[in-house]
């Protein structure tokens, strides 16, 4: 979903960077605080970061005939709340921008905003709402990760449409075009991401039930399947 290096006009590139920076700063502070107060959660943070590393490296074919990749940021979002994933996602994106020429430094802010801020926020919100209506844990995790992934790509399409409005149809016509490239391609991949997130979440519930309970105290009675 990465917007390529140089493919946002300079004022957009600067704008998104300024918009993303406070989230990354606050997220870094919140992770530091979390590790200081709950050192046992370090392993879960590591798993969330590693999961994002793996998933965003996998370029999968989709039904639209092009390839794209999942984000893996939903897991951390639903576990820790959206703040923690902003710096973790930024690290993944920086790695890809610097070493792989995938994404870019000038578009880093916009890409962080879609993948490491909007995606986790949506994942967290979906997870909490699904649990509130008593959806099964696996269903809540699946929906959160899949919709968070999809939201990332819709955001990317909107960012590009905003920067490159269609000559006749304006933002909305352009948004439909970019959504056709990103969001449509992403639907099967979002489902894959949802399924893989349930898989890793099953492992976490088996091996780290206490840490999970500590993360979602209000969900106390329900965390154990």
């Amino acid at each position, binding site marked *: *979903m*990465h*917007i*390529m*290096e*140089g*493919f946002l*006009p*300079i004022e957009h590139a600067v704008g998104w960077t300024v918009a993303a920076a406070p989230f990354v700063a606050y997220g870094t502070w919140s992770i530091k605080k979390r590790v200081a107060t709950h050192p046992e959660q370090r392993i879960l943070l*590591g*798993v969330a*970061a*590693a*999961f994002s*590393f*793996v998933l*965003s*490296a996998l*370029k*999968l*074919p*989709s*039904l639209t*005939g*092009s*390839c*794209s990749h999942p984000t893996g940021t939903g897991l951390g979002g639903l576990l820790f709340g959206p703040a923690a994933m902003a710096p973790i996602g930024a690290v993944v994106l920086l790695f*890809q*921008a*610097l*070493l*792989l*020429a*995938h994404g*870019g*430094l*000038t578009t880093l802010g916009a890409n962080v905003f879609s993948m490491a801020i909007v995606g986790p926020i949506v994942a967290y919100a979906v997870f909490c709402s699904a649990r509130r209506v008593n959806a099964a844990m*696996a269903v809540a995790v699946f929906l959160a990760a899949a919709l968070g992934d999809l939201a990332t790509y819709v955001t990317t399409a909107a960012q*590009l449409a905003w920067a*490159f*409005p269609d*000559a006749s149809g304006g933002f909305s016509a*352009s948004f439909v*075009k*970019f959504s056709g*490239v*990103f969001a449509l*391609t*992403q639907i*099967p991949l979002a489902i*894959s991401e949802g*399924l*893989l997130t*349930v*898989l890793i979440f*099953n*492992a976490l519930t*088996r*091996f*780290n039930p206490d840490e999970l309970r500590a993360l979602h105290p209000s969900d106390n009675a329900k965390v154990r399947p």
Partner: protein
Amino acid sequence: MKRMQNMLLVVAVIVLGVAPLWIVEAPSDEAGNQSAMFGGADDKARNLVSEIRPDYQPWFTPLVEPASSEIASMLFALQAALGAGFIGYYLGAARTRERLRNERKTAHESDTSGD
């Protein structure tokens, strides 16, 4: 039960990943030549940008570009390996911890029942 669910999840992901390779037909131009398939969505977006704004010139280029697509796929594999390596370490450590805990528990139980 959980094991069954996990197996089904893995199968579903593989099906979702492989199915497009069969289902999607390569688009062909008027001469009937099939064009390239399964390129990156990022590249499609780039083409769309130059379609909407033909005069747009990227104003910044990547500092370092992988010297070839082989090197690029090596770096992507490296990224996945780093992540998968950590998750594998976590799973191994967690399983061992669980086993030791169970062994300690059974040892403790046989101790007390022996008295």
